[in-house]
Each structure stands twice: as C-alpha cells, then as structure tokens.
C-alpha cells in the first residue's frame, strides 16, 4: 500500500517537466531530488547507525570534483564521472572510517568534521588539479546515444532517474536485516556484540555506502550547476542535509524522503533575502526541535506508541 503510493509519487515527480516549462521550478526540482538523496545517505549513517558524520560534505565535494575532472581533464564522460565519484568516495570512506570507527562516537564527529575541512583546503589550494578558487567552469551537458541533456528540463530526468535508483537501493537496504542491525547498533552496541554480531563491518559498510551515494549525488549536482569550485564545499550543503534528516526524523526512511522534498524548496522560498536566509533557516530548525525533538516521523511514532500503550493497558489483564 505504502509502496504503491511511493511508486505513484515517484511517477508524478518524474512527470514534472511535462507540467511546467519554468526553468526556475525545474531547477528547484533538480536540487530537491539530489539533496534528498544526499540526506537519505546521511540518514543511513546518522539516523540508522547513530554516527554523526560531517564527512558527507567532503564526499559531496570530492564527488563533484571527480565527475567534473573525469570529463574536463581525463577525457571521460558524465556517466563515468558519476560512477567514479561513487567508487572513489567508497574507498576514501573505508580509509577514513577504518581507524576512526575504532574510536568513540564523539571522536568520530570531530574527525569527520576535520576531514570535511581538509577537503575544502585541498579544493582551494591544489591549484594544478582543481584550479583553486576559480573552479572548473563550463561543464558540458551530459549526453547519451546522441541525445544531449542540454536544458534544465532534460537534466531533470537524469536527476530523477538517479535519485529514484539511489532511494530504491537505500530503501531495500534500510528495511533489510542489515538496516535492522544498524538500528540495533545505534540503540545498544554492547548487546549487539553479546549476540555474536561484530558492529565494525556494519558501521564501515554503512559509512562507505553513505559516502558513495553522497559522492555520486555531488557528481550529478555540479553538472546541474555547470561549474565546480570550492563553494561546493560550503557548509550550507551539510547544514541542509542535516536539517532534512533532523526535521524528517533521523532513522525514518520515509520521513527523511518527504522532508527532503519539502525542505529543499524552503531555501528557495527564503531566497528573497540572501542576508537573512540562514537566520530564518536556523529559527525554523530551533522551533521544529522544540515542538518535535525526534522529527516529524518521530512525533508521529510517539503518538502511535501512546495509542498502543493505551490499548494494551485497556486490554484484559492476564
């Protein structure tokens, strides 16, 4: 039932270019799709596994530079660029995660934050490769079988297909026994170990998959922008992903998907005042945390639990 509704929604979202020809609206749509994927990937490592990773921003940037450089410097095409962005980030995440995940959750947060800052430095200072603050501009439109995805309306289909594929994969993963084990690790790691499960491979896999998907998303996104420069590592992106996850409800797959679509539109709505945009964004976040500390999905769940508790207490006592 829920799956049928999701399928219908997916098709409706895919039909947007047939409903509007406004490049502005379609552009917001592309951002919403890609941000939702990046947020869902953050949800895997933070919401499900309980590890707050700021490295997502670094993966997003590495992905953006990888796909751009694949096309502009190494003679590949867009599709290879996105695949390489995913693969490279999976490997980087393994290298960063293997030592870091042996420390505690707090150290993990700090190391991932440092990693993101380090990537920013590299993007700015390794001028031979990244062209520094100038960035790599004029990224060509992707093409396949002689068809050029040259307009925002056409690029929208790439973003749509990409996000549907990634979200479907994440859905299967999150609802599997692996997803359930990640939740168990978040809730009670010693118990997981006492039940014969080693948490390390699960955490490492979640981190690496999350990195690969975030990197691929970044790789698609820079071709929407047409340029990659150090601004791709602006903290604004990390903040957006995090807010989507927190407001949607960390650990809820659908909560984060719905909030991803809804909240990606928000900065656009707030665009009228560039100066106050972040302030308003912050106020909305704080207000939401006051009303629903576990996100929309968490809030709905609490209500459901309260009903269940009431019905169990009202039932015949054994």
């Amino acid at each position, binding site marked *: 039932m829920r799956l049928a509704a999701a399928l219908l929604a997916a098709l409706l979202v895919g039909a947007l270019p047939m409903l509007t020809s406004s490049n502005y609206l379609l552009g917001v749509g592309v951002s919403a799709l890609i941000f939702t994927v990046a947020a869902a990937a953050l949800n895997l490592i933070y919401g499900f596994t309980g590890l707050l990773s700021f490295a997502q921003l670094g993966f997003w940037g590495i992905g953006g530079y990888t796909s751009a450089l694949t096309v502009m410097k190494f003679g590949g095409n867009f599709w290879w660029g996105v695949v390489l962005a995913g693969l490279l980030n999976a490997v980087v995440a393994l290298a960063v995660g293997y030592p870091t995940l042996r420390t505690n959750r707090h150290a993990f947060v700090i190391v991932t934050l440092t990693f993101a800052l380090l990537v920013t430095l590299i993007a700015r200072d390794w001028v031979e490769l990244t062209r520094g603050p100038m960035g790599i501009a004029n990224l060509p439109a992707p093409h396949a079988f002689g068809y050029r995805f040259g307009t925002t309306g056409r690029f929208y289909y790439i973003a749509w297909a990409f996000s549907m594929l990634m979200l479907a994969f994440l859905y299967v993963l999150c609802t599997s026994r692996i997803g*359930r*084990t990640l939740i168990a690790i978040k809730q009670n790691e010693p118990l997981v170990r006492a039940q*014969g499960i080693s948490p390390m491979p699960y955490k490492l896999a979640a981190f690496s998959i999350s990195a690969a998907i975030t990197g691929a998303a970044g790789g698609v996104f820079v071709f929407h922008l047409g340029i990659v420069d150090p601004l791709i590592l602006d903290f604004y992106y990390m903040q957006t992903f995090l807010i989507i996850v927190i407001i949607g409800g960390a650990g809820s797959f659908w909560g984060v998907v719905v909030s991803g679509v809804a909240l990606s539109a928000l900065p656009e709505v707030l665009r009228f005042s560039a100066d106050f945009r972040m302030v308003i964004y912050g106020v909305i976040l704080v207000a939401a945390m006051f009303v629903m500390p576990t996100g929309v999905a968490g809030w709905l769940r609490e209500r459901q639990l309260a009903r269940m508790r009431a019905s169990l207490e009202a039932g015949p006592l054994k």
Partner: protein
Amino acid sequence: MSALLQLSDLRKAYAGVHALDGVSFDVEAGSITGLIGPNGSGKSTAIDCISGFQRLDAGRVVLAGSDITGRSAHVIARAGLMRTFQTVRVYERLSLRDNLAIATQQFDRASWLDEFLRTRKYRDAVDAAESRSRELVELIGLQRYYEAEAGILSYGQKKLVALAAALMPRPKIVVLDEPVAGVNPSRIREVEAALRQLNQAGETFLIVEHNVEFITNLCHRVIVLEQGRKLAEGTAAEIHADSRVLEAYLGTTPEIAAAEMRGAAA
C-alpha cells in the same frame, strides 16, 4: 568428560584493586551454577571477563574444549556463550519480535544475498526464528507485547525479554547477570520454574544473583566469591551451612545472618 566451561586462575586488577585474584571453577554441562558474593566481590568482573567484555590480566577460559581467553565478545557469543546484563539491555525502539530475531540472526546461515534473493535458506531461517521467538515469548508470558516496542515494558519485563533473547540461538551456556533483580516478586517463581524447565531440556546456566533464595532453590552448585577470591564452593545446602559464607556475606554471627538471609530473600 571435562566441564563445559572451565575457568582457571582468573586475574583482573583495576588500578591496583584486585577484582579477581585467582578464581577457578567449572560449570558442568547441563547444570545450573550460581555465583554469589557481597557487592564488590568480583562477580560482575568475572562475567565480563568470561564473555569478552573485559580483558583478563591472566588466567584461562575454556568453553567446550576450546580456549576462548581474550577473544572478542562477538566471537565468544558465536562460540555458544550468551549473556545478559545487570543493567537490563534490550533494543528499546524495536518490537519484541525484532529483539528476539536479532539475537539469533548471526547463527543462521542466510547471508544478505540470500535475503535479497529471498532464497529458501533465508525463508527457513526466518521461519525458524519466528517459531522459536513465539515459543520463548510465551515462556516469559509476554505474548501480548510481541509486536510492541520493548521500550514500553517495565524494567522487570525487559529483564525477561533479555533472558529470552539470550536463549534464542540455543547456546551451549547462558550466563545471567542478576536475572530477577527488579522483577516483580510474584513473577520470580515463574522465572525460576521456566529456568528449571529449560535446564531439564538440556540448557546450561551460570547465574549471578543477589537473591539468595532464588539461587539456593535453583542451583545445583554454588560458588561464593569474596574480594576477588573463591571463598566456598558446594551444593546449596553446603553453602547455606558454611559459617564462613555467612560471615563474608553479612559480617555477623550465624543466628543473626540466617535471620537476615531470610529477610533478604523475602
């Protein structure tokens, strides 16, 4: 035939305090063995070291003939030793069904690929886990809460869920850390009966507990620890009659101690 679990000369010190100072004892297959002692006598440290949650300074732990000394907790669990925790641990935001299913997940042979392809192996594993968890949830009397999140249960009920989870994969030995502390007194008898029934079906238990009556009713053999050393070992009746034990436990004369012991058990 050697014992199922053999502990020899366990030693563990924290910053100079000897939590375990050369403790040795065996747990026979098919037995219920009790481990008692005053607070700080080293019971919890012993359990943590046996189950791999803490590292021994010295000594050997042998489970069913294989040396598991110094192995990681998850390796020891896979070798067939399941434990519960003094401060109850359950997955608060998962249903009882999932709480129990996860406990046996590592022991079936279905991989993630089996799950993705929904192979026969996977379906059989899920069915087996389901029938085992229904059986156990009935044993602990919480059928009504099977689909409910464990977080809504009382502390005592969670202890029972933790017990059921430890039993899920039919381990070689179950180590229980204070299984009835905080459990409703009216339910303690039921837990006792359930453990006896499981034991008669072949399950081996090592139980740490403060409730002396519970231990003496249930255990075939009782080990008493004091200040990291084994003070006494014997049947429940022998331990009961041992004046050294009474003194260590209560620091007083047998007459007063016996009265206090009755009080503690009530």
